[in-house]
Structure formats: C-alpha cells, structure tokens
C-alpha cells in the first residue's frame, strides 16, 4: 500500500535548535510539496518540487527555512534556528502531476513544538 512517509511524527525542541523533517514520497510521483498547518492559518504551502527541482518556495521564511530533495526518495525541510512561532504540523505530500492536475497524497505529518 503506497504511502508518503514522514519522520519524525512528533518533535519537541527548544528555541534556537535546528530541526530537520524528512519525507519519503510515493515511488513514481514527480511532485513533492511541503505544507504547514496551524489552527490560525490552516494549510499553507511552504515549497514544492517537480522532478526534484524546486518550483516555488515563496511560502517559506528564507532566512531560517530550507527545503531540498537530495534524491527522488527523500525530501527534507530544515529550520535553523527554530522559533516558537514555527510550532505547527508540517505535512509532506506527493503527486503524479501530468498536465496541470493531480491529487495529492499526504503523509501523516510531523508535529513540531518549539519551546
């Protein structure tokens, strides 16, 4: 049963620490997304990749967030240094986008708490 896998599921850290979240997209999918979900803002797009190339990272605070896809089986989202306002659930999703349309398959999320 193909699924998007995210680690860690839960992370509690202190302000100023580096946090790395990892995502294994579904094999064969060509597009990977990072979203952040909070009660106040809902689901916000942070960045996404097509065939491992970054297409849009305008939703990310550039000074502290970075997203990469070192290979087709791994996407990473790094926060350095972390701040309390970064506390949220971070979702990775993958899709096979042909033309302009595709359904997104989400992972279970990484819940980040920054103290």
């Amino acid at each position, binding site marked *: 049963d193909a699924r998007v896998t995210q680690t860690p599921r839960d992370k509690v850290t202190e302000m100023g620490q580096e946090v790395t979240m990892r995502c294994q997209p579904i094999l064969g999918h060509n597009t990977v997304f990072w979203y952040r979900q909070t009660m106040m803002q*809902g689901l916000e797009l942070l960045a996404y990749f097509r065939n491992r190339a970054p297409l*849009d990272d305008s939703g990310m605070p550039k000074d502290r967030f970075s997203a990469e896809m070192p290979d087709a089986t791994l996407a990473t989202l790094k926060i350095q240094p972390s701040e309390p306002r970064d506390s949220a659930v971070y979702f990775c999703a993958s899709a096979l986008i042909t033309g302009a349309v595709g359904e*997104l398959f989400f992972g279970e999320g990484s819940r980040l708490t920054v103290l």
Partner: protein
Amino acid sequence: SQKIEQNSEALNIQEGKTATLTCNYTNYSPAYLQWYRQDPGRGPVFLLLIRENEKEKRKERLKVTFDTTLKQSLFHITASQPADSATYLCALPGEAGRRALTFGSGTRLQVQP
C-alpha cells in the same frame, strides 16, 4: 490575491440527513477544484476533483457541484453516517506562476447518531 472561504463553524447534523458544505473563492477562475477529508491527527485525504466544465460530480454518497459564475463549490454527503465526521477542505490550484494547491481552512462536520 486568491481567497478561499469555507464556513469555519462546525456543521452538526443527524445521521441519515444530507450534509452540505460550501466553498467560495474570489479573484480568479480555477480550471478545477478538489475536496479533501481530514481526520484529527491525520493528513488530508483526496475525495473528489471537479473541472470547470463539469457542473456536477458524484462518487458513492458524495456529490460536488462547481458554479464558476458564483465562484462556489458545494459538497454534499447524502445519508450521512457518524463515520463521515471529519474536517472537509476544498482546494484550488494557485494563480498563474504558483500552481500548487491552495487550501481553504476547512469545515468540521459532526454527524450525530
């Protein structure tokens, strides 16, 4: 900029009734619209996609309409069951230059037995 509005108040209905959720959008005309279901502590799950040239789409007890004049989509669950209780999110592709899906804030549905 694009704005998606879903009723932030929870919708409470009795089992067996039809639930109707609304998604309104402004400022541009998307080529399609998607609906997702999200359970607590889980990621969203895709339910349905409807294109701009389709007035209505059905899947089992689900029905989606797409009115491009009103800039509105309605999501119906007929013969609702307690297991349908969840948050339902609508999503639209971004405007030109930002094609990833933008999500509404979701409406929580509670089906009472």
